[in-house]
């Protein structure tokens, strides 16, 4: 079957090594610096707050937004994270999730709006999003290391790539789902495009957009764990340590911590979406 002897591997390597890295390393260093200070800032901020205070705030938030059940779970979850000695690691993972989610939402939601209202943008975005979602996650860990080194920054980049598609897709879907007659009515009364978007389409799309953000957060968490392979600190790194030292106990302890974090993040963001 080898009719063309397609040297994609060599091409990619020479493109990255001979052009991308030398030409744009300054640019990537710049991004790397900004992201590093962002991640470190968030981590330091979280670490600075006493674990008790964070747990109580989350507990109250869960009580108000969802109810007793989730509030109780966050309390037990918080106590677990502290009691197994994984509190700092949980915060490191959380920081990566927060930073990459913020970037995903800032870029993803406007892109979703654009692709809902513009056919050309939609046609261009669609295959790119498919690519981002289906390419095995390990594959873009490699360029992430090459371009941004090891540690939290490439983790954020990889997480961003993996977690952005739902933000774009759900936003676009939410806007397209606004009933045609409602949009027509708004136009018939002389709305500008901006008024249509801000007063009609976005408010009606909010629940769907929130569902998208919820998905983004969940994907970000799973990627933040996998990104431990490229040196991201946090719970993933503990699991990795458990694997490499065949330490079942550590693996389970850290794995359960990830589950706790996931459930709290998921239920909390879902109930925010339901409140809106």
């Amino acid at each position, binding site marked *: 079957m080898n009719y063309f002897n397609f040297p994609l591997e060599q091409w990619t390597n020479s493109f990255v090594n001979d052009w991308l890295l030398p030409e744009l390393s300054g640019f990537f260093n710049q991004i790397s610096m900004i992201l590093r200070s962002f991640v470190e800032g968030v981590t330091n901020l979280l670490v600075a707050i006493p674990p008790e205070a964070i747990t109580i705030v989350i507990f109250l938030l869960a009580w108000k937004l969802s109810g007793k059940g989730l509030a109780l779970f966050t309390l037990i979850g918080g106590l677990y994270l502290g009691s197994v000695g994984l509190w700092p690691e949980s915060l490191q993972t959380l920081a990566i999730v927060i930073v990459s989610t913020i970037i995903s939402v800032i870029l993803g939601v406007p892109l979703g709006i654009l692709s809902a209202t513009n056919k050309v943008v939609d046609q261009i975005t669609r295959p790119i999003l498919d690519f981002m979602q289906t390419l095995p996650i390990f594959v873009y860990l490699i360029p992430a290391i090459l371009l941004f080194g090891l540690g939290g920054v490439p983790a954020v980049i990889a997480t961003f790539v993996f977690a952005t598609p739902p933000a774009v897709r759900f936003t676009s879907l939410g806007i397209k789902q606004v009933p045609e*007659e409602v949009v027509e009515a*708004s*136009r*018939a*009364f*002389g709305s500008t495009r901006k008024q249509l978007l801000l*007063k009609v389409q976005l408010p009606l799309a909010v629940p769907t957009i929130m569902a998208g953000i919820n998905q983004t957060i969940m994907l970000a968490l799973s990627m933040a764990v996998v990104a431990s392979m490229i040196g991201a600190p946090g719970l993933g790194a503990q699991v990795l340590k458990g694997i490499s030292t065949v330490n079942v106990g550590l693996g389970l302890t850290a794995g359960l911590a990830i589950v706790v974090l996931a459930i709290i993040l998921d239920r909390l963001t879902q109930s925010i979406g339901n409140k809106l």
Partner: protein
Amino acid sequence: MNKIEVNNLTKIFGSHPQQGLKHLKNGKKKGEILEETGMTVGVNRASFSVKPGEIFVIMGLSGSGKSTLIRLVNRLIESTKGEVLIDGEDVTKMDKKQLMETRRKKLGMVFQRFGLLPHRSVLHNVAYGLEIQGVSKEERNEKAMKTIEDVGLTGYENSKPSELSGGMQQRVGLARALTNDTDILLMDEAFSALDPIIRTEMQDELLKMQSKLGKTVLFITHDLDEALKLGERIAIMKDGEIVQIGTAEEILESPANDYVSKFVKDVDRSKVLEASHVMRKPEVLLSYKDGPRMAVRKMEDVGASSIFVVDKEKKFKGLLTIDDAIKAYKEDISMEQFLISDVHTTSPDTPLDDLLGVAADAKYPIVVLEDNHLLGIISRVSILSGLVLGKEKDEEVTT
């Protein structure tokens, strides 16, 4: 000047609308164009005009292009060719800003599925049109409250649309269109989603409102009864073309083609036909001066048992039966005292619907009067045949 004037308006959906136009020009039909090019002719060279203060109804079955047509009027859909003049200005040639201004100041619209903003209260729905024009909150809420009152929804201003019944939701839709105080109302199947009773109620209110406010209304419907009730003039659409424009009577009595006549076949004629449509001239009339002998002879000639009596100005005086005429002749007394004057009378524009009950228990034919002049008479037979057959055939039966 016409409030709305539509000339040769055409809309072709598809990839090469200009090519479709050529096909239309060459006389190809909607179906042929769809088969050959895959393009759909939405509206095919439609022309009509609406006078200020008129209710103009466009009627057609689904797929006839009526909803497309009304959306071409305020350019929710871009036309392929033709012009739409609102107060003499061509909507199809306006730039974005002019179009927006025209929509805001001149064209209100009411939708079949209401098109209300589900996240806003009734008040904020009704005030929406003014809000996007930048009218101050105080002023727009005040105006909105006024129209909410006009449509009878006071007390519901803080409810969400989903908390209201269909009929009430459409009142909100109507109030929203009225708040902008535009001269023109575009109503797209506005009452089609409502229950029959609510629908009738809304139709009556629309008529009342229109006579009070003098709005120009372009009304779309698939319901012929609704069209006949509301429309001062009606345009009937088929396959994107307007096949006939006329008043309710014109359409019922002289359908332009088979399609229209098939359409009007099932109409409830009693609501549309009026006394003047089914009345006939009495075969004989008795003048006052004629006397009883003449009366008997005239009745004998036509084999009737009674005769209508008029004075020399043809003013209706009463009815004389043959028995009374003979009695007056024999006893040589004036026939004046035998005249029966309490026969049922009616005006020529009374709907047949109102005469059905009267005719059922009337002993004598109903007399149609205008300024006391006898125009014609209506027998029970002519009402029934009018309902069944329409006027033309009715004439064949009685003459």
